[in-house]
């Protein structure tokens, strides 16, 4: 494993987005992972539609909540092609699903994996290198007040409640940490990111980890 790795350095991670007052973190994290998976395969890096997942992922509740697992399962079962954000922009509230013809260009997934990597965060780091940015679910109650630095206390692995994307890790300092992309805008945290200590399953970051295959 390298001491430091961040998929942003490979220019395959889109900019931080802002879910505003919409409880759609689960959709932002899944779409972000699909965007990166395609970019890693050499496709242009571009924002895909989160609103499409919010409106159309019928086993979820849109801005009132959802699960990354249900969203990935929906994408995989229906083979829905995610369209560009410019075609189906985010509006921070639930709406009616827009359907597109099969000939309409878009980005579907070939599969996904879900694992509990708790006590195996080194394996999780290998998965990150192998598959690209990972979807994670954390307990983010204490993230309300986070300004920066490495989260290593006050963050239980109790009840996961917020979906994020893990884009890298940094083990060069005395405290190794995960580099975690959030969806609360770039003014929150470290340019929209959080740094969470590696090891010890801080915030439950290793409990529910998904990878997307395209």
């Amino acid at each position, binding site marked *: 494993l390298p001491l430091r790795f961040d998929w942003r350095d490979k220019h395959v991670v889109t900019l931080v987005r802002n879910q505003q007052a919409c409880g759609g973190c689960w959709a932002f994290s899944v779409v972000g992972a699909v965007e990166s998976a395609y970019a890693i395969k050499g496709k242009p890096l571009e924002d895909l539609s989160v609103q499409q997942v919010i409106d159309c992922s019928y086993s979820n509740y849109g801005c009132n*909540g959802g699960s990354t697992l249900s969203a990935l399962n929906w994408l995989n079962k229906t083979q829905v092609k995610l369209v560009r954000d410019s075609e189906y922009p985010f509006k921070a509230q639930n709406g009616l699903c827009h359907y597109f013809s099969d000939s309409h260009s878009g980005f579907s997934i070939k599969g996904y994996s879900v694992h509990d990597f708790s006590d195996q965060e080194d394996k999780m780091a290998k998965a990150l290198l192998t598959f690209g940015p990972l979807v994670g679910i954390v307990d983010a109650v204490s993230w309300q007040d986070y300004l920066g630095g490495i989260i290593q206390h006050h963050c239980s692995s109790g009840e996961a409640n917020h979906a994020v994307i893990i884009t890298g890790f940094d083990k060069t300092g005395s405290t190794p940490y995960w580099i975690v992309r959030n969806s609360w805008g770039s003014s929150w945290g470290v340019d929209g990111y959080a740094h969470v200590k590696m090891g010890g399953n801080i915030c439950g970051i290793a409990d529910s980890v998904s990878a997307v295959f395209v």
Partner: protein
Amino acid sequence: GPGATFTRTGPRSRERQEAAFRESLNRHQYLNSLFPSENSSAVYGINQFSYLFPEEFKAIYLRSKPFAFPKYEAEVPEPIPMDGNIS
């Protein structure tokens, strides 16, 4: 409602916002006081969420449903046959 649940509670009074902000200040002081010597540790303070009580923040932003995922099991390496040639 169409948006996040927060709109269901309607507009928030100024008093409520100020009370939430004061509670946030106290919380920041507590969170920052526990491990002052750890220079790389997280810092907590005023941001766009400081006008919300924790329960309001959670009701709007923390709406991902947890699921129990299968424990990751690294592939068990194939046992090398006794005669040594590896298929």
